[in-house]
């Protein structure tokens, strides 16, 4: 909470909210997009976290949440993202909303690579789904309460920080948009076609932030989007964000999960579908 510095940011956010009322509509087109860390966190959640849940892959969530485009034949070889994209699940990391000692099947929380330099190398598994791969559970069987069945749930699923300082990343971007703070999210039932909206966007021109835009949205197909990632910022701007409302299962279960993320840059992103 203290790191968020709510009092210190309140005036700026208030001024931005007022300015957004008269800011121009976000332009449309295919362009370079830099996402702030909180939006990268939700992008990881929706387009990586859910499709690597092995119960989804095996079809047991098909009636409700859906299945996954990351079918078993892709394990170990599928180029999910660019070489800059490495994603780790770690239920044991300090300070995460998805941190615990043991999951609800008694399996210790653990650190598991999911995407290594763009390649799918593991799924999230509980005891039942792991058996399909002749593996042991990697400790993600979690229930929302005493009255629910454990399901495969994200723990802290985090993108590994890259090497870029945020200011350098902006300075290196000649023409693009910087989008901040999630407002809406939607993705298909195999986790391929997504569309996100953010509260605010800024023009990037010649390496500097410029004009403010309202109602920014961007859309894409998961592997194309992550393969267009050409930079992830370093630990200076890395934050463990939280998603306290991850829904799954029937009857419905809401889980708390964490996502370490830093700002990242994506090329050839389709922006601004709202008229």
């Amino acid at each position, binding site marked *: 909470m203290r790191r968020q510095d709510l009092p210190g940011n309140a005036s700026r956010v208030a001024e931005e909210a007022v300015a957004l009322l008269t800011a121009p509509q976000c332009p449309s087109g295919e362009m370079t997009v830099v996402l702030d860390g909180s939006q990268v966190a939700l992008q990881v959640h929706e387009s990586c976290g859910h499709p690597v849940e092995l119960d989804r892959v095996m079809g047991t969530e098909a009636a409700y949440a859906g299945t996954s485009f990351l079918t078993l034949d892709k394990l170990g070889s599928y180029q999910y993202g660019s070489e800059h994209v490495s994603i780790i699940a770690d239920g044991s990391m300090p300070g995460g909303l998805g941190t615990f000692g043991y999951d609800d099947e008694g399996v210790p929380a653990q650190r598991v690579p999911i995407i290594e330099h763009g390649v799918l190398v593991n799924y999230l598994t509980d005891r039942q789904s792991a058996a399909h791969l002749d593996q042991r559970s990697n400790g993600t069987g979690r229930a929302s309460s005493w009255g629910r069945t454990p399901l495969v749930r994200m723990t802290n699923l985090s993108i590994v920080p890259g090497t870029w300082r945020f200011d350098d990343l902006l300075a290196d971007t000649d023409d693009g948009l910087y989008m901040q703070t999630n407002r809406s999210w939607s993705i298909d039932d195999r986790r*391929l076609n997504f*569309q996100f909206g953010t509260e605010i966007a800024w023009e990037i021109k010649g390496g500097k932030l410029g004009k403010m835009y309202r109602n920014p949205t961007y*859309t894409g197909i998961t592997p194309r989007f992550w393969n267009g990632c050409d930079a992830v910022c370093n630990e200076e701007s890395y934050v463990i964000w939280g998603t306290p409302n991850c829904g799954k299962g029937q009857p419905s279960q809401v889980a708390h999960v964490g996502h370490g993320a830093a700002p990242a840059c994506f090329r050839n992103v389709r922006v601004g*579908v709202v008229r």
Partner: protein
Amino acid sequence: MRSIDAVMQILERALRGSSADETEALYLGNDTHLTRFANNYIHQNVSETNARLIVRTIVEGKVGSAATNDLSPESVKRTLQTATKAALAQEPSSTFPGLAPSADAAQPDVFDEATAQLSAAERAEAARVLCERASRANFIAAGTYANGQVEVRLANSNGQRVYYKRTEADATAVYQGQTASGYADRRGTRAAQLDVAVMAQEALERAQSAQNPQDIEPGTYEVLLEPYAVHDVANFMATLGFGARAVQEGRSFMAGRLGEAVMSPEISFWDDGTDPSGFAAVFDYEGTPKRRVELVTNGLARGAVYDRTTASADGVESTGHAVPPGTLGGPLPLNLFLAPGQKSREELLAGVERGVLVTRFWYTRTVHPLSVMITGMTRDGTFLIEDGRVSRPVRSLRFTTSYLEALNDVRGVGKDTALGRGSLGATCVPALHLGSFNFTGVTEF
């Protein structure tokens, strides 16, 4: 479930034990069962019996509340103390007009003992029918069969004593093939209303006809929305437009437009918690009896639904639409009806020159609340219609469109309605043929 007498004792104990100026005790009980299947077999069978007591206390105009599912005398006492402590920590409310006065609310005929008592074996039999129909045709079924009962009681220090209980049954099925899937669902207050054999056939035919989908260019199309998809449209109208708080705060398209045309003359929405063809609930979570409220009549904005706080602000009476304690956003129409029209499904289809047939929507989210701009995906069967006939299946589409604008160009309304479930309540809607719907992307299946 507890006996009626036992529940009343708990509520009366809460009222007697309170030292607050006003006290309200709300009991929410449920006894629910769900059998879940996937890959053509049952993989989950769960039951839950739970009861919550939520007390609200008012002290010198300050409002506090607390909840528990431990209904022992000691726990009820502690919960009262917590609610009162919370009240004392508040500033006096300038908007809360006090608890509901005493008024009658008749119990609707929405309880069916056979549905309440439906066994796991009977749910398994329904799952068998749904799985076998899929399996015989080389499809994979996933879905649920659920039944149960809910019981709501409210007592307050103004003498209000109201009660209802309702049974619910609910079946869903997704049939997955090699390249596409189909869907069907049924729900009602009586399990006997759910014909799973008919439902299985519907899901199968939809899945079979959806195989080998092709691309179409995103763009603006006419649409024929099955009732499964119209439920989503109705739910967003309800949550973004029809509640008095949204209107008062200017977040609703109804704000400042009462009496004006906001939709096509073909469209009439109303809310009626007393209609047993929906999931009737005859009083709201403040104990106010529900009234039928005309929201939109022949396209004209007629009114919004109120709880006690929003009604007080507008100088009117509550219509009985308070939401469960702890739910943000103000009153909502939880028993929403969209008027059926005259057209059979065949007639609706015949009226589409070139459009998209949508089985249902998925993962829909608000892009802009005032215009009811929504984005989401189609799912489980999307088709191109040309010259009044389904010409081919197409891949699932992303849309980003204003539901409000779409309801201003209505080309046809189905004569049959279906009951759907929203996040809090239920909607009863027909199929719709709409003239303009903006598809903004396509996925890979």
